């Protein structure tokens, strides 16, 4: 094992998010010691108050950009990072909070906060890659912890991470699930959704919610046509796409087109 100081320095940063993706790293109970042995955890406030100054060999970034302050902060982090990897739907697509992009954010502020005048925010929630160069994007809401470890391992070995961009269906069938859409008539976004979760929801007889965003070659029109045949109405189709990846094309376009 490498001596302290020679291991790559890892930083974990938070922007507008729920912390769930960072927690996925702490949730790697069995592998956490191996991670701590392989990298020097230099900045990870969710795990420790201790901070080691940059530059950092690898920054993991969670969350989206929703304030002018954060827009400036991500630029500083990018400058202090040799490699920058975004983790989770907020960082890769703007997250659920990107629903503000399709409404007037001031309306939300007036409803949510007792003193709206205290709130300084941007009109939009956007992905990190819209602000700085990103070396790799790891999808998911939240990210899959095995994939997160895969990304770290690939970084350490200097290889490409194996995070296939095909549909959830491939994982679903590998797992031996019965297709919920074909066998039960349950609407499912699996055919247009990026793999990575291991097809959790269909394993429990639920349709895929699209947490990992669009797959590599999504045929939205074909799926929507079939969803309509299953009796799913237009507003429901808009809501199906209008969740954690609402700002990721073509989920954004479909959500808007169906009245989201």
């Amino acid at each position: 094992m490498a001596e302290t100081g020679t291991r790559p320095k890892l930083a974990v940063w938070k922007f507008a998010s729920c912390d769930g993706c960072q927690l996925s790293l702490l949730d790697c109970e069995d592998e956490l010691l191996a991670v701590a042995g392989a990298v020097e955890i230099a900045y990870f406030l969710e795990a420790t108050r201790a901070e080691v100054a940059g530059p950092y060999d690898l920054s993991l970034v969670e969350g989206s950009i929703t304030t002018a302050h954060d827009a400036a902060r991500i630029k500083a982090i990018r400058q202090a990072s040799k490699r920058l990897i975004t983790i989770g739907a907020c960082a890769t697509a703007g997250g659920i909070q990107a629903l503000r992009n399709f409404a007037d954010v001031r309306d939300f502020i007036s409803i949510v906060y007792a003193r709206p005048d205290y709130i300084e925010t941007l009109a939009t929630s956007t992905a990190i890659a819209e602000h700085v160069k990103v070396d790799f994007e790891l999808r998911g809401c939240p990210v899959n912890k095995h994939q997160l470890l895969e990304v770290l391992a690939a970084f350490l070995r200097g290889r490409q991470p194996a995070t296939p961009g095909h549909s959830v269906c491939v994982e679903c069938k590998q797992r031996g699930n019965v297709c919920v859409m074909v066998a039960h008539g349950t609407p499912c976004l699996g055919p247009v959704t990026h793999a990575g979760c291991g097809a959790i929801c269909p394993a429990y007889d639920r349709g895929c919610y699209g947490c990992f965003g669009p797959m590599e070659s999504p045929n939205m029109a074909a799926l929507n046509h079939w969803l309509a045949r299953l009796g799913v109405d237009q507003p429901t189709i808009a809501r199906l796409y209008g969740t954690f990846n609402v700002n990721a094309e073509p989920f954004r376009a479909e959500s808007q087109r169906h009245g989201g």
Partner: protein
Amino acid sequence: MVTSGDAYVILPAALDGLIQALRADYRVLGPTVQASAIVYDELTGLADLPRGWTDEQAGGHYRLRRRDDGALFGYVVGPQSWKQFLHQPVQPLWRARQSEDGVTFEPPPTPARPLAFIGVRACERRAIAIQDRVLLEGSFADAHYAARRAEAFIVAVNCGQAGGTCFCVSMGTGPKVEDGFDLALTELDPAGEHRLLVEVGSERGGRLMAGLPQRPATAADRDAAEAAVARAASQMGRAMPAVDVPAVLARNLEHPRWAEVAERCLTCGNCTMVCPTCFCTTVEEDLDLAPDQAGRTRKWASCFTLDFSYIHGGSVRQSGRSRYRQWLTHKLATWHDQFGSSGCVGCGRCIAWCPVGIDLTEEVQAIAASEQG
């Protein structure tokens, strides 16, 4: 003395004896109801079989339905095939560990017990034969498949009914299992004098049969079995067009139909996953945080993914059109050149389990019909 080629009649209850006898030496897998479908899983006894259930199938549609009798094999084929067990979706290949003494490799664990399959349909038996051809013959025999296939005990079941997506008759692959079984069952008269005709196909099948309560089959039993299979043959929901399919497809690689089907195709890969003959795999690096360990795992792959045709500079088959064409022309045409037969057995899974119900027989028909002007 029970010998190969003989036929006997057993009562449904005797199947429990068959399952128990097999369980002494095998991991017994067969049809059972799970998640509103008939799937293949471990059987512990007669009660696990889908008694009184059937399936309704169409393009993108599968529903479990109650029968009005107590048939044990009164369904067609479900979402999985025996590929699930012989050519596993996720197959560990090896682990390696580095120490001061060098690098040591560990092979994956081998199955503790051989497999016994109960309920192998004619199309499925043919599919196993095709995967045998692909994975066992030729220069690169697959050791993992071979280890699971070698001792596999096959209890075939002749179909007494066909489903809406079946087309084995037009592929010449069913509905009767002709060979390659240890025992072959034909279920007779489930609403009346419920019994099963058992044909013995191997010595070990005969030994097993000798231990069950049985009587020799009469001419009437044999006639009833033939009638059951004839009924299934007459019920095919689909047919592959009676044309020279490889030639038709080879002449029509730029046919506009490929673009039309691509408008509907999700490129999700479901058809390849459920196909009992599709065999493609990819190899992934195991998680390797520890610097002194490595490993590889093989997983089912699909020609519908971009990774599948990724070479230096990008993926060769970018469009859904080129990916669907690749799959269909390999399955129905170039498979002949490569392996000496069609890659399709007419089970209809790719039709039923396509989330949007794309039907390969319909696609071939459209292309073939356009040639006739």
